[in-house]
């Protein structure tokens, strides 16, 4: 009966915060604690975000429930949760592709009221344009901005070099491997010079070796460019390997269950025992949510739909 909606008062934590110290250098904090740490104004701030869908049977279903999250400039935040927790939807809200039912997304203190090139979303299935070459894909955002051609081409070359794809500028997307496609998507996103990169399970469909490589590459790009990254994944190890902080969402409705700052030294590797250990702490907490999600999946076949008027 996951479709039942409990009214929730804003600002009240709906989980019982366990304040025990865990992990070697990972420790969990209560949701509010991370906010207090922020002295400077956050880059991205989600305030009391709620989103409800209408199911096929017509009842309203709460997908996101009073999400509060602050992300510092230059921070690498990973959001994990079971499938159906609304973590991808959350990225779409930050990207401005959908609007929340209530609450506000702010970037640099300004409310988000639509898509903008200061926040670029990287999709799981990359969303590259198959009718354009690799270089034209990377150039696309700059072309929309109206940058002069020479400048566009120069930057395109730079960003393709950054993701080691300079040789493939004239290829079409279908000629590339999955990992190369994601690198093009990263280059295309970076080329518009966004402050915030939103990554929606970008490596989920890749094989393990490719994913390891892309983790290294992403970490390098992140430290080179100083972008803020919000990275959604269902893979806890990946989240711990990449993030400065791991945010755990509950299963339907998605709420922030807990946050885990990760202070392991970089560069990290998926195989580091510290990463594995820290991931275990997160996983213990996540397990309940995964079970709830599985239970729901086996019992009912609810297929939520975004209400007309919301988003595209």
């Amino acid at each position, binding site marked *: 009966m996951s479709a039942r909606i409990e009214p929730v008062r804003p600002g009240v934590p709906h989980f019982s915060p366990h304040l025990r110290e865990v992990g070697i250098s990972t420790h969990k904090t209560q949701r509010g604690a991370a906010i207090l740490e922020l002295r400077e104004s956050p880059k991205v701030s989600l305030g009391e975000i709620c989103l409800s869908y209408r199911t096929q049977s017509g009842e309203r279903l709460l997908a996101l429930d009073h999400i509060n999250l602050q992300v510092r400039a230059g921070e690498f935040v990973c959001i994990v949760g079971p499938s159906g927790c609304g973590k991808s939807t959350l990225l779409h809200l930050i*990207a401005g592709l959908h609007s929340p039912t209530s609450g506000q997304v702010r970037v640099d203190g300004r409310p988000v009221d639509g*898509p903008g*090139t200061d926040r670029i979303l990287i999709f799981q299935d990359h*969303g590259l344009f*198959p*009718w*354009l070459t690799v270089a034209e894909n990377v150039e*696309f*955002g700059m072309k929309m901005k109206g940058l002069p051609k020479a400048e566009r081409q120069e930057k395109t070359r730079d960003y393709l070099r950054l993701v080691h794809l300079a040789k493939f500028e004239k290829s079409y997307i279908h000629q590339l491997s999955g990992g190369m496609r994601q690198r093009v998507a990263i280059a295309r996103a970076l080329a518009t010079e966004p402050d915030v990169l939103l990554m929606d399970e970008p490596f989920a469909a890749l094989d393990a070796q490719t994913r390891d490589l892309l983790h290294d590459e992403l970490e390098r790009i992140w430290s080179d460019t100083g972008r803020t990254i919000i990275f959604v994944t269902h893979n806890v190890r990946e989240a711990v390997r990449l993030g400065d902080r791991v945010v755990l969402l509950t299963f339907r409705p998605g709420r922030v269950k807990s946050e885990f700052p990760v202070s392991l030294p970089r560069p990290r590797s998926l195989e580091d025992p510290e990463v594995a250990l820290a991931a275990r702490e997160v996983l213990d907490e996540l397990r309940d949510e995964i079970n709830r999600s599985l239970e729901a999946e086996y019992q009912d076949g609810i297929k939520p739909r975004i209400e007309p008027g919301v988003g*595209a």
Partner: protein
Amino acid sequence: MKRAARYIIFYSALLALWVILAKLKIWPPYLFPTPWGVAESLYAGFQDHTYLIAIAVSLQRVLLGYAISVVLGMVLGLGISSSKFLEETMGGLLVSLQSLPSICWWPLALLWFGLNQNAILFVVIMGSLLSVTLAMEDGRKQMPKIYSQAGRNLGARGFKMFWYVLLPASLPFIVSGLKQGWAFAWRSLITAEMLYLSLGLGQVLMMGRDLNDMSAVIAVMLLIIAIGYIIDGVVFKAMERHLQNKWGLAPAN
């Protein structure tokens, strides 16, 4: 090579059948001409420039009408697919209108535009507009949503969104509709030209009828088929191949 052989066998057999039928003289020769009679008519028609002029006039008309249909149809299709209300109301109407042969508009077109070029153009547009509109509407729906989302995210708006994202993204899904629209435009044009002194291929065909010159009629029929086929085989094939190369799609059909 094998394919060429098959073609040769098939078309020789067809020609042979034709010759046999003509030789049987079921109809008098002027009603059932031989292939060489038709060939002579073709030669004569090109010799005195009748056919060249007719082809030029017809092509110019159909291209103009088809171009208007494509532009209008794309705008209409996009508009319809972007509104649930229009989709439910207009969508159904368009499908039912498609069963109406476009030449049915001829009497109205005559009264509205007068006995001239524009009446023909109107019939051509009515013939192909619906196919293009429905194809665009359908293509927009089939087009993966991720392209428009990515486009919006990368800053595409309004006309840029249409031109750089929606149009190229839906092209593989609308190319068969565009092709169908072309076939309808070509057919409507010939029909309309047959009803009016118009210099086009349709009229040349009717002239053959009036002169009881069936080899001329068949010659023009062959021209009509050939032009339709060439446009389909050259223009649309090239477009499809181009799309397949870019998108990496398996060849259609």
